[in-house]
């Protein structure tokens, strides 16, 4: 229930909307009940008067019927409009709220989540919260107000009838929802999880289709999706069956109430304590009054799903980012030298530290390389410098300022990265380039692409810069994607440049032209290169050799042979064995 309080805080900005929506709903409900009760009374009274041959004023009740019919129709329209508008506004703001909390977590804290799972949270789980507002919050208030009024109305006729009505209304409006909530909790929780699992399986199945096909695993994936689909449906079926049950129970409550009312009221009519037309009125009133509580059991049944959704959202929102942004204003960075001093770092759950006692100084405008085998901690150095993670000990300084004192976004504004894996967004080439500099002119884009040696290729495409590149960049080869990344880095035009295996997996010609492009890119910038290949090492001023997170050697290129005699000389077999 703690979740409900937290959710209420999120709902608070929409209080005025909710009030308006609730008022409209109450009005509509009362108009409907009035309409039914008045119509029942009217017919019976007219018949009685006709049979007795006495005159009666039928204009007033007719007007009441007309008025409530109009209010009912208009009120329902207004109520739906207001409540839906409010819900969608609320949901839109919740998505933004969720993304705001999600963004600082990337990439360090999101590693354990599949994108399908996160997608399910931002889509289905947030959508599930609308249930709380439209189906729980508003109807509960409406039911509270109207049931009170009904009780008063009935009490004016007969206290016993009022008691009877209240008992059944409470049965339908409190006991049933309570039962439904208890029954819905477990399947609701599972639904939230299975929806995420299904999305995950579908994403794997769609994006990984090629490998599944070759490895003959498509059938298994299809069955996995089918199985999840069935699990999902099984829980929905249980919820649905319960819902049918509560719906039947509501009907039964209303009708039993009516039945007992007749049982109690018929003797009253006989004893002339109750005018006969009032019996018709009370009968129809009773049936109509249950509309006030009818939506509640289903709403409370879905409460489990909504609260599970809320918990899944709060789980992300409450995750503490891997770094803490500084409280004070960020210092202005005026120089761009980089200093690692005694840097040590371990990933959570890791058995041994990834980095230990790393010292490295790259003066402004100079270039350094970090060389080492896979897993030696090279990429971690980048992750620390980019403030994706925070150092455990030691410090990293840029321009003399500890990067912990600099707002991470401000820091990254000064750093451009060319890495092996660049995400190409599901958009045009132009839009993918504009990510790096939103205001860039077409001419600037073209210049960057020329330097990155990719302009000619883009220009040769029928749609040029407006060519759509798939979400996984499938239509561009690895080398082309890498060159887009270089063009992005050029556009970003940052004083610090991080290169992560920039020529990995490229053929010789591409590698050479890319190196030429990088040479242009590196000019006048502070460059840090990480690599396990020799290419480009002759361009740097100093080299740090890492082995299992520790410094193995440092100096100019000449330190490599002795430092890595074991590893790098073994390069020979594939190169020198013929």
């Amino acid at each position, binding site marked *: 229930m703690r979740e409900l309080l937290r959710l209420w805080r999120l709902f608070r900005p929409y209080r005025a909307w909710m009030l308006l929506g609730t008022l409209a709903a109450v009005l509509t409900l009362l108009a409907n009940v009035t309409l039914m009760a008045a119509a029942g009374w009217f017919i019976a009274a007219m018949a009685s008067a006709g049979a007795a041959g006495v005159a009666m004023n039928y204009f007033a009740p007719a007007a009441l019927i007309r008025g409530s019919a109009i209010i009912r129709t208009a009120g329902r*329209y207004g109520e739906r409009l207001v409540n839906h508008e409010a819900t969608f506004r609320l949901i839109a703001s919740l998505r933004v709220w969720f*993304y705001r909390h999600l963004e600082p977590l990337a990439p360090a804290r999101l590693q354990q989540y599949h994108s399908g799972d996160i997608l399910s949270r931002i889509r289905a789980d947030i959508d599930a919260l609308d249930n709380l507002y439209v189906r729980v919050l508003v109807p509960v208030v409406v039911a509270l107000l109207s049931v009170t009024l009904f009780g008063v109305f009935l009490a004016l006729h007969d206290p016993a009838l009022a008691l009877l009505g209240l008992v059944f209304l409470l049965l339908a409006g409190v006991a049933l929802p309570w039962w439904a909530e208890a029954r819905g909790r477990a399947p609701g929780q599972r639904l939230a999880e299975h929806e995420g699992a299904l999305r995950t399986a579908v994403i794997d199945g769609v994006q990984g289709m090629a490998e599944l096909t070759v490895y*003959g695993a498509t059938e298994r994936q299809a069955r996995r*999706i089918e199985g999840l689909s069935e699990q999902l449906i099984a829980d929905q*079926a249980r919820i649905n069956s319960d819902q049918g049950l509560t719906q039947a129970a509501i009907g039964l409550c209303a009708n039993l109430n009516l039945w007992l009312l007749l*049982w109690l009221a018929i003797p009253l009519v006989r004893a002339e304590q109750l005018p006969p037309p009032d019996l018709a009125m009370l009968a129809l009133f009773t049936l109509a009054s249950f509309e006030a509580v009818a939506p509640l059991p289903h709403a409370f049944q879905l409460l489990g799903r909504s609260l599970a959704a809320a918990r899944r959202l709060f789980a992300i929102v409450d995750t503490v980012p891997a770094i803490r942004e500084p409280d004070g204003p960020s210092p202005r960075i005026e120089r761009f030298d980089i200093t690692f001093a005694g840097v040590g770092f371990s990933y959570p759950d890791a058995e041994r530290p990834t980095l230990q006692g790393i010292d490295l100084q790259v003066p402004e405008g100079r270039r350094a390389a970090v060389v080492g085998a896979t897993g030696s901690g090279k990429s971690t150095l980048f992750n620390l410098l980019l403030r994706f993670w925070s150092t455990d000990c030691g410090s990293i300084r840029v321009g003399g300022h500890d990067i912990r004192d600099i707002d991470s976004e401000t820091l990254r504004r000064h750093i451009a990265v060319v890495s092996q894996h660049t995400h190409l967004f599901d958009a045009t080439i132009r839009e993918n380039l504009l990510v790096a500099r939103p205001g860039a002119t077409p001419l600037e884009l073209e210049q960057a692409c020329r330097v990155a040696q990719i302009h000619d290729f883009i220009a040769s495409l029928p749609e040029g810069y407006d060519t759509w590149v798939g979400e996984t960049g499938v239509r561009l080869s690895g080398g082309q994607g890498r060159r887009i990344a270089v063009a992005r880095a050029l556009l970003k035009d940052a004083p610090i440049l991080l290169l992560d295996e920039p020529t990995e997996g490229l053929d010789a010609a591409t590698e050479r032209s890319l190196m030429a492009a990088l040479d242009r890119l590196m000019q006048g910038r502070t460059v840090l290169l990480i690599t396990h290949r020799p290419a480009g090492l002759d361009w740097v001023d100093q080299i740090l050799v890492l082995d299992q997170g520790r410094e193995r050697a440092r100096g100019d290129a*000449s330190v490599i*042979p002795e430092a890595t005699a074991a590893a790098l000389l073994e390069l020979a077999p594939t190169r020198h064995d013929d």
Partner: protein
Amino acid sequence: MSVNAWLKSQRPLAGHALKGAIVLSLTHALLAVAQAWFLALILDAVIFGGAGLAEVGGWLGWLLALLALRAFITWLSERTAFTAAARVRAGLRDQVYRHLQRLGPAYLSGTRSGTLVETLTKGIDDLEGYYARFLPAMTLTMVLPLALLMVVLPLDWLSALAMLITAPMIPIFMILIGSGAEARNQRQWKQLARMSAHFLDVIQGLTTLKLFGASRREVEVIGRISDDYRASTMQVLRIAFLSSSVLEFFATVGIAIVAVFIGFRLYGVALPVPHWLSVPDIGFLQGLFVLMLAPEFYAPLRNMGTQYHARMAAVAAAEQLIEVLDTPPTITPGTARPTLPTPLGVRFAQVGFAYEPEREALHAIDLDIPPGARVALVGTSGAGKTTVVNLLLGFLQPSSGHILIGDTDLTTIDPAHWHAHLAWVPQQPRLFQGTIADNIRLGDPGADLEAVRRAARLARAADFIEALPRGYDHPVGERGTGLSGGQIQRIALARAFLRDAPLVILDEATANLDPESERLVQQGIDDLAHDRTLLVIAHRLATVRRADRILVLDQGRIVEQGDHHQLIAAAGLYARMTAAYGDAPALAGVTTEE
């Protein structure tokens, strides 16, 4: 086929449940007539007959029985309707996903997977309302009002006439208002799918956005997209709400007319009708009964109005489903399952391929991968290497020429049968949700842990896997959460080792590896090559020197083939590429080896 017809044609998937649901809701409605009759009897007897509990006790008993029966039927019909829709949903999800599999990776590479994911999850769930509620409501609308007219007509033809005249107004106005809604609704659904696709893209690219300082900018984009979605949804809903209000209004007017006609006659006031029309007399019993039936008469029509947007949501979702289902596979899978020789040989005879007419990616190439040989395919990026691999994997079929396995044309072979003979390590392998062991077992789910370990050892992956806290049970996500590119590569390689296939295709298998790991993996590949046919696609020429045959691809043509020495001697493209790569790479200058 129209979307409507398509939706209806899926009914058999629901089996008998759909008919059951319709029969149950019809029974439920007819029992309401009986209930109204007993209620009218009781009220009439009490109000006009001066009856007490003793006189009406029997009817009260009937009433109680009816109430219980109706409650039971309500529950049963809910369940049945759900089952009907659930069967359709499960059936369709399976059908659509399997169709995607037939369309294959070639189709998927040209679509937004985010949209497909939305269609397969939310889209299919949106069909629920159509089968569970709209279809039963529609059948009820066609049957129930007529049945009620039949009941009312002998009691009071004037009320029946009033109902008959007002009822058609409802569907007419609905259609008038609803016609504009359809297109809007369609647009709105597409927007929803786009929104989801955008979210997936942002989630998967969040780190890149962050690097460019664009991740906080995205807050506004997400706000705007969500708000646009709200605005367009409200456009659709406004129409839906308006139409149901109009409907409600007409239903109310209808009930009011019936009530006024009955009330005036009971009171004895002359009705404002032409005097040649002789108005039938009516008693309180009939009057009250007819009055209670009037709402039941309009109820199915009103209900249809409410379910109308269940139908619209279903229509929109169905359109996406039809789009997928109507896409014909670009390849016609073969059916033959011949016994293929081990190791396998492959021959391309005059194979040409064009992604689009006029833009040939391969020009009638001939190439030979002899059984048991180690063949390398090299060429600059864009030369057509990936196309050759996709043809060989059967994702594409040649536009001209033949790919021959022994002397069987590849297009005649059942793809699943063919794939069973392949192991493939793509350029950027994907890890699937599950443990590392699950991922290695991808091609052989029954393999025991010992076999998995052996494959991992051969791929030089065992050391780092065993160093993980949970070892082979370490859960991995789509991008190999916490694993480096080289480690993912080696897991994919272990997958290929475990597969134990006669033809192995390695697309840049040693990219992302440091020299030490590369050397180790290379040894693993040497082990793997034993008794197998190996096709290696390489950018870095150093890794292909020991190949028995090197095929040099340039602009969709095989320009050279031979072994390393022959090609160097020929002084062609290969020799030039080798020279360009630097036989004396930068580092070689500092290693004393050279």
